């Protein structure tokens, strides 16, 4: 792992704290732009959904759920579409920049879940959910985190692909056909959103549990007192 560690020393007391550079600038930039964009995409998407909150026939219409307007963005269908069709470009741009940077810099190795991470899954699940002892960690992300973040990136890609199949089912007819046509693409777009929200829920809970230093690392890149062994 190329994680860069330094020793931060207090001249007065002589105390030293370890710090690691965990999140490169582009990753942090994309993370926060994407967080804002995702917020707007979900909020405006729910307002769009409110215009026809069903996946069945229009006649007779059987509503799936009545999403409260207070948790939607745009105020009305046309307004929500403006938000959605504006922020989708920001969402896509942050995603493309992130993926491009990760691949070119090689930083993807920090977070990509690969088959060799499979054996690390169960010990982490035992630790998080069944009070098992914490496995020894030597890198920023454990197997379960890699699985979660890799899934989140895949969901991001799927949200764009299903979104294009809904927006342009004819120009991207091959994409819509892969999903079973416009009707199913719209349902898949909705399901992918809920899966993304499920990830987000777990993500925010874990960030809350892991404290300030961990949270700050996504802002400044450096993490003080990392919870894993460097070198």
């Amino acid at each position, binding site marked *: 792992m190329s994680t860069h560690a330094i020793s931060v020393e207090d001249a007065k007391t002589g105390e030293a704290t370890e710090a690691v550079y965990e999140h490169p600038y582009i990753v942090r930039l994309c993370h926060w732009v994407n967080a804002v964009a995702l917020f707007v995409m979900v909020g405006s998407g729910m307002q769009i959904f409110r215009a026809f909150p069903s996946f069945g026939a229009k006649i007779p219409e059987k509503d799936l759920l009545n999403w409260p307007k207070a948790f939607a963005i745009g105020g009305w269908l046309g307004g929500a579409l403006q938000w959605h069709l504006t922020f*989708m470009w920001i969402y896509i741009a942050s995603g493309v920049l992130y993926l491009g940077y990760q691949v070119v810099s090689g930083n993807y190795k920090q977070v990509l879940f690969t088959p060799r991470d499979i054996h690390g899954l169960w010990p982490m699940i035992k630790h998080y959910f069944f009070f098992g002892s914490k496995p020894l960690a030597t890198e920023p992300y454990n197997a379960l985190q890699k699985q979660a973040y890799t899934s989140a990136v895949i969901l991001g890609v799927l949200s764009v692909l299903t979104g294009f199949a809904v927006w342009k089912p004819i*120009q991207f007819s091959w994409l819509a056909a892969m999903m079973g046509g*416009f009707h199913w693409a719209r349902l898949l777009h909705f399901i992918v959103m809920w899966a993304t929200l499920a990830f987000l829920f777990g993500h925010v809970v874990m960030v809350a549990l892991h404290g300030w230093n961990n949270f700050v690392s996504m802002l400044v890149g450096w993490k003080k007192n990392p919870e894993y062994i460097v070198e």
Partner: protein
Amino acid sequence: MKSRIDKQAFKSVTRRELLKLTPVVALGAFVVPKLRDPLLKAGLGFSDWASGVMYRSGHLASTFENSELTPFEKFPINGYDVEDPEVDLDKWRLNVAGAVRKPGEYSMAQIQSLPKQVHNTRHVCVEGWDVIGNFGGALLSDFLKSVGADTTARFITMQCADDYYESLDMATALHPQTLLCYEMYGAPLTRKHGAPVRLNIPTKIGYKQAKYLTDLKVTNVLDKVGYWEDQGYSGFYGL
């Protein structure tokens, strides 16, 4: 051996790293009402521009088997105002104007004398529902040719008996599935579905497919885009 750094120096490093995230704050412009509307308008404009770039004039919308049709009685009727503007079908004429060699009034018989095309295509509403309908009529491109339209003009604009109005880019007007539709499910258009003539444009969203047509104009300038578009909906909205 780990490199060492003084606590104060480290603080200035992290502060600098934090400041590099200021571009994210720029997204806050969307919270300022005065900036929000022009920004969203620009975003929608960009999407419409990209839609035009993605549009392939020869690419056909999927067609469906009769067995896949939505039953006629389950084909929704979306009027913006009245469901029947009480058009006098016997006296009805389509008034053609603008960049055409033969402007004037055209009768139903003249439209029906053009080759008839019938297809089963998907109708997608901006609200999110979709149905598969059977539509029949003359190709708008044939009609435009018959009136000597200047097909290098940019737009077709439409007026309707219920005061609805629309516009269409020329590339879509000339698309081989864009119909001056006078039949649905093998029968003349019913009043609620836009009798006597409506547009059927499988490559466009529902609200572009104006009903109760009365006027058609070939033009290069749009002073109005369409009833819904002028309230903030996408002007191009191609599928």
